[in-house]
């Protein structure tokens, strides 16, 4: 420590600022286990574990989310208001009250909004410079993509779970198994939506551009997923059947009515569960792979 002290404020240690008398730390270090003074550099350069790096970036997403409270209102509040207002204003659909019919759709809307807000942060990361330091770190690109997408998924599922609790007010009585199924399904759908958001956000230089995408692509995708209406009697049902998100909503609807008979009125006309699983898993896998692929392309926005 001696050679460090007195060099300059840049090199100062706590001794110099007077919080600890000079030499006190050294003396204390002798008496106790030497703690937190210095550590020898590794002989070989360190090799990071890409999974651990991804987990670290995922935690960062969560911490940032918790510290920006207004994001909670945007992603959770708006769907909740839709649910209450539409539930009050629209009549029974598919044999149940609209509030009940709209429940899985609202849940998916919460996941969609949260996933989108989470991936918009890639634009902020780029603009604020944080991304640059990740891009020159010795971790593969998929590690960065995974961190971002896991982070978005975690936030989305946490907010979705909050909304699921409201389901008990509708008279649902999910057991632990049904709840587990619903949460697992939310994870899968969130991975798909966050990856899609990443794919769209990666090349964007401003968040304004993302709002346009939101209005013309993501909202219609949600509207035409069977979340809002089944469209069974109209040509629109073909569009709905071609929308991968339809199977995310349908799978959730089936899980919400866990234990109801296969011929129950609530499940009439829905795609089979195996099909929902297959398509939603494929949606998530393809979106993730495309997000990974696009992230290895350079954009001018990498350079500040």
């Amino acid at each position, binding site marked *: 420590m001696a050679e460090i002290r007195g060099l300059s404020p840049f090199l100062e240690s706590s001794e110099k600022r007077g919080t600890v008398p000079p030499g006190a730390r050294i003396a204390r270090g002798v008496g106790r286990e030497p703690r*937190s003074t*210095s550590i020898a550099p590794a002989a070989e*350069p*360190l090799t990071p574990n890409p999974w651990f*790096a991804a987990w670290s970036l995922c935690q960062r997403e969560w911490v940032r989310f918790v510290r920006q409270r207004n994001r909670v209102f945007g992603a959770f509040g708006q769907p909740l208001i839709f649910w209450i207002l539409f539930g009050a204003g629209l009549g029974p659909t598919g044999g149940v009250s609209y509030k009940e019919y709209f429940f899985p759709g609202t849940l998916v809307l919460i996941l969609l909004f949260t996933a989108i807000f989470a991936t918009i942060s890639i634009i902020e990361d780029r603009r604020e410079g944080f991304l640059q330091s*990740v891009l*020159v*770190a*010795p971790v593969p690109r998929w590690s960065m993509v995974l961190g971002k997408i896991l982070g978005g998924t975690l936030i989305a599922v946490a907010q979705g779970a909050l909304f699921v609790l409201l389901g008990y007010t509708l008279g649902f009585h999910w057991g632990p198994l049904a709840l587990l199924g619903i949460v697992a399904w939310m994870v899968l759908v969130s991975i798909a939506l966050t990856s899609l958001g990443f794919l769209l956000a990666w090349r964007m230089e401003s968040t304004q551009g993302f709002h346009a995408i939101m209005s013309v692509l993501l909202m219609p995708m949600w509207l035409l997923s069977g979340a809002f209406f089944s469209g069974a009697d109209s040509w629109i049902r073909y569009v709905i059947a071609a929308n991968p998100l339809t199977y995310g909503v349908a799978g959730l609807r089936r899980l919400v009515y866990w234990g109801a008979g296969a011929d129950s009125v609530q499940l009439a006309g829905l795609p089979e569960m195996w099909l929902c699983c297959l398509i939603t898993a494929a949606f998530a896998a393809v979106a993730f792979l495309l997000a990974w692929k696009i992230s290895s392309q350079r954009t001018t926005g990498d350079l500040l």
Partner: protein
Amino acid sequence: MLSETQSAAIETHGVCHRYGDRVALGGLDIAIHTGEIFVFLGPNGGGKTTLFRLLSTLIPLQEGEARILGFDLRRESRAIQRRIGVVFQAPSLDKKLSVAENLTHQGHLYGLSGRTLDVRQNEMLARLGLSDRRRERVETLSGGLRRRVELAKGMLHWPRLLLLDEPSTGLDPGARSDLWDYLEHIRREEGVTVVLTTHLLEEAEKADRIAILNEGQLVALDSPEALKATVGGDSITIQSSDPEALAAGIRERFGCPASVVGGATRLEQPGGHEWIARLVEAFPGRIESIMLGRPTLEDVFIDRTGHRFWREKEEVGVG
């Protein structure tokens, strides 16, 4: 000093880079020795930042060859990334996180974790005088403190080579001198090679060696003293109402080279003080002011490029 081993920390051969049609770097050959403090000096747009991005692995190498710490930049960038520390000009900290949290994530990205990371983090915070700031959010810190966190971040994983892009930008003179103390410290104590870019002439003076970049070309490469010694003696700068005519008059009368740079007549001669008297007597009434200067890096720059470091737009034709 560890710098006695003259193996190259960075070696480039014919490195070119283009943005569309614009040539940012035109065939660069440079060798930077292990353990030296090396500065790329040049005006904005000279190619420094492009070179920095190439060396830091941020953008791919288009043309030419480069080896960093013995590894091929094109094929072994992961090995390079593990061994270099990078401090960008633009801040790279997450402002919503605390100082310690920023370092923790950085550590995880570079393979540090657990107790090793704790100890190393504390060490870096103490060394940069940030120990009592560790829990503060970066958004609440001043520019000088943030730059220190950037340095701690860049040095966390014991890099052998530290790259810094315009590290003094936005720092007051005190913080700037602290920064240099720290850079000299890591070079001396840890043998770290330090490579930085700057557009500040006075900053470049502190380097072991300087490469001057102008319009994508290397125009000079040597120690500051050696470069200044190449300029022909003292510089004399004369302000007058007609600098061209005055320069012509000097050339005719004394038979020595005189040129117009930046709207002033300029000549370089040994024994400049004698020339002042001679010139004032020779051109009575025509000289508004006359200035004698020891050679500076700016004189080197003018000597090599024919124009001022900070030139006005209309002077472009002169170069």
